[in-house]
């Protein structure tokens, strides 16, 4: 099992979610986050005040998938989240040792 963490542009969220659903991935955790990588923030002046946005709004998706689905999921995210511009985000993969469904204590991939 792998955990996928994808930081994407808020504007791509609906498309990514729909595309993941199409390949059978329904479950995910979604968080509104702020941050930046190479894409630095910018400053807007409004009515004489400077508004510096150094942490840009992003959406973080988290999902744990069986190994067999991971590549398809990553490809799907790459395809749908990419605009080609700086700030498109990143995908992080990490190995998950165990998953347990709290309701019935099922374990492993059955719990996903």
């Amino acid at each position, binding site marked *: 099992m792998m955990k996928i963490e994808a930081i994407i542009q808020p504007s791509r*969220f609906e498309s990514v979610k729909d595309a993941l659903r199409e390949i059978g991935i329904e479950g995910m955790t979604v968080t509104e986050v702020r941050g930046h990588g190479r894409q630095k923030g910018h400053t*807007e002046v*409004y*009515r004489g005040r400077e508004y510096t946005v150094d942490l840009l709004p992003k959406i973080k998706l988290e999902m744990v998938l069986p190994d067999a689905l991971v590549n398809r999921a990553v490809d799907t995210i790459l395809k749908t989240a990419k605009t080609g511009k700086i*700030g498109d985000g990143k995908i992080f993969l990490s190995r998950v040792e165990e998953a347990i469904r709290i309701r019935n204590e099922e374990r492993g991939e059955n719990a996903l």
Partner: protein
Amino acid sequence: MTTAARPSLTPGIPPEKNMQGSPTPLSVLGPQAEAERQRIRQQFEAGTSARETLRALCELADHNVQQIFGELLRVHNRDAQGLCLLALGGYGRRMLFPYSDLDILFLLGNERVEQELRPLISEFSRTLWDIGFRVSSAGRTLEECKRIEEDNAEFHLALLDRRFLAGDAALFEKLDAKVLPASEKQARPFLLAQIHLLTRERLTRFGNTIFHLEPNVKESPGGMRDYQATIWLRQIVEEKRGIRNVTAAEEELSAAAVDFLSAIRCFLHYSNARNDNTLTYELQAAAAERALGIGDGVARAPAEWMRQYFRHARTLNRQLLRYLEQKAPVPLSLRQRLFNAARSAKSEPAGGRYSSVRDGLLEAVDLPSLSDRAITYSLFAEAARTGTPLSREAERSIGYILTHPELPPKNTQISWATLREILGSDYPGVALRSMQRLGLLTEVLPEFAMIDSLVVRDFYHRYTVDEHSLRTIEHLQELAAPPDERGAHFVPLWKTAERRDLLILTLLLHDVGKGMPVENHVTGSLAALDSAAKRLQLSPEEKEEVHFLIEHHLDMSATVQRRDIFDPATVSAFAQSVTTLERLQRLCLLTYADIHSVNPEALTPWKAEMLWQLFVATSNHFSRTLDRDRLHAPDEGSLLQRVKAKAGDATIEEIERFLEGFPRRYLAVHSAAEIAAHFELYRKLGTVPVQTELLATRHGFSLTVLTADRPALFATISGVLAGWGMNINKADAFANAAGVILDTFHFADLHHTLELNPSEAERFRKSLADVLNGKAPLEPLLKSRVSASRARAPKVTVETRINFDDASSAHSTLMEIVTQDHPGLLHEIGSALARLECNIEVALIDTEGHKAIDVFYLTGQGKKLTTQKQELLREVLQGTLV
């Protein structure tokens, strides 16, 4: 209430062993009680009323309590002297729901009895648990009952509902007739304060509204706890004063509401097989199907049945709030006074005022006058202006008139001017909330009835549609002092928004379509606007603005969530659809309020920040593209025809010459009628070279000037305005391709010169024309007025900031000045620009409190300003404006 720990069901000696030899051992009592419970349930399901069901459940509990208590006394071989059992709380009131706890107090004569009877008490509770009763018990000696436990107000409140169950009747009599009356009298202020505190906390926990999509029929506002708290307040307040404060009709409404909610609560307990009082969507449908609480057996749609629920919940909540907010009773001669009022045509209040403020609430000074709707609306207008809510008594009086046809109301048709006054004030939600409670909102705006108490199932929304709509308005008025960081950015937008009345009307109507059989609710809401606009006689421009806001009320939210708001193309496309800065401001406030009112967590700080970023980017886009988007008149076919239709004998070519080259903003901020009027002025320029139009507006005056462009023109016009003591709040300066300028100034008449002396308007216009035509000098006019005004120290200091931008326009240099506003400011800036030979191509002038925010598109000899010129200008202006 703090209770003794519940006895464990597993360890220890089985109770039946101790009750062996009893004629009714536990093995018999348990099945008997269960069979009786089943019988009561079946009867309820067969249609027996909730009242009857509660009575039967209470009798069953009483019977078992008394029987087990008697048996235990017998087994322990002692009598009941010095011990009695009391039912408290809901059980004491004989309102025992299927899975509710039995609140029982063991009253002990003294501490010795307590020691002796401890095993018996413990066994008693355990036995009741074992035969299926959920016991919540407490033990107190008579002496202890005299003391007020300040950290256990619930216990004292539950004692108000005490009822003798079994045991030493003389002991109960002592408590009931001597001990408690004395201590309750002493504790009255404490109990009152605690009821207020506990109730306020509970109401706040549920957002102070009855209109939850899945309400808790016990705890939510309008639920059974409201009723219980009202009973306590009545007991404490009315007993003290020895009066009745509720009319028979109100008692009847209240009883019907209690019956209806009791039926639901029984149904929920049976359906969930536990003390769970949440009326979920699923159970709403099941209850509606069996017409629960209505009794005619005719199945209803869930939404329709829920309206019945909210009607009853409103009754209970209103009664509670009246007691909470208004301690003073109203004499029952109210009806007579109102009736007398209806017979009398006179409605002039003493001192010319219809309202006064008492305890932070608006009271009607002259209750009888409320049969005149014009006076009632003036009360709401006062509430909206000051943010002071109407007292429950004032509402009660209005409600009385509304429901009594023998008191015919006068002036029932509200005018748009009156409604505008309410909607356009700082606190429209205060008035509208009250109007909704009374049913007056739907009298004024019948379209709103379509969403009255309407439940639309939705994963995100927490409230009914009408409640959501009213909350949007309350969230905006909250911006006067926002309760958290999410609103901080939007405060100046709310404070400076123009035509708030149209924004609030939009919010009232934006979701009305959800109550109509249409596929897309926006279509329904627009249809509702059609009927409302016709009835209220909105102008075409007003209707168009509300139409736009309703039609696009989801656009800004969708752009924030589905588009890259940091992409200039997104901003440009969004700006194009919104068209003006003023509209953007209203749309942004609408979006802020709409998201905020979905549920308390819907507007995250993250979303609020995104919304603000889109607003700022779009606002800046408007400022920076002012002179880029110029009109090419032949492309504006429809506008040309509309202007021609109003302009009599003019040819299309003439109109094209007039419009050619104006910034597109000119079309966005003026209606076709206004453009036609400007065109009429333009046609007269040949004979009179300075054309002016002066109009009184809601917040002051507006002056439009058309004339041929010339050096220092803007500075001269603003100088004349300053000389007359006028403070410019907003201005637009445009020029067409032929060099005709069209400047519009919105100003406040600081000294009320024009307001108090209408004849001065002509002298003012002549003075302006004379100065512009060189027939009179400006300086003498300016001298006394400006120096006098400058002498006053500003309340808030604004640092001067001047920014230049050469990138936004292909032809001009954009200069933005933010500085301290003061009379004559624009003349000072304009004069400095003229001295340095800077030509104003376009100007956009605005103020925000003490801050002036001015944007100028400048050229020097037809080109952008050089860097040296910019620096010189900065230096001169910094020197002038500091």
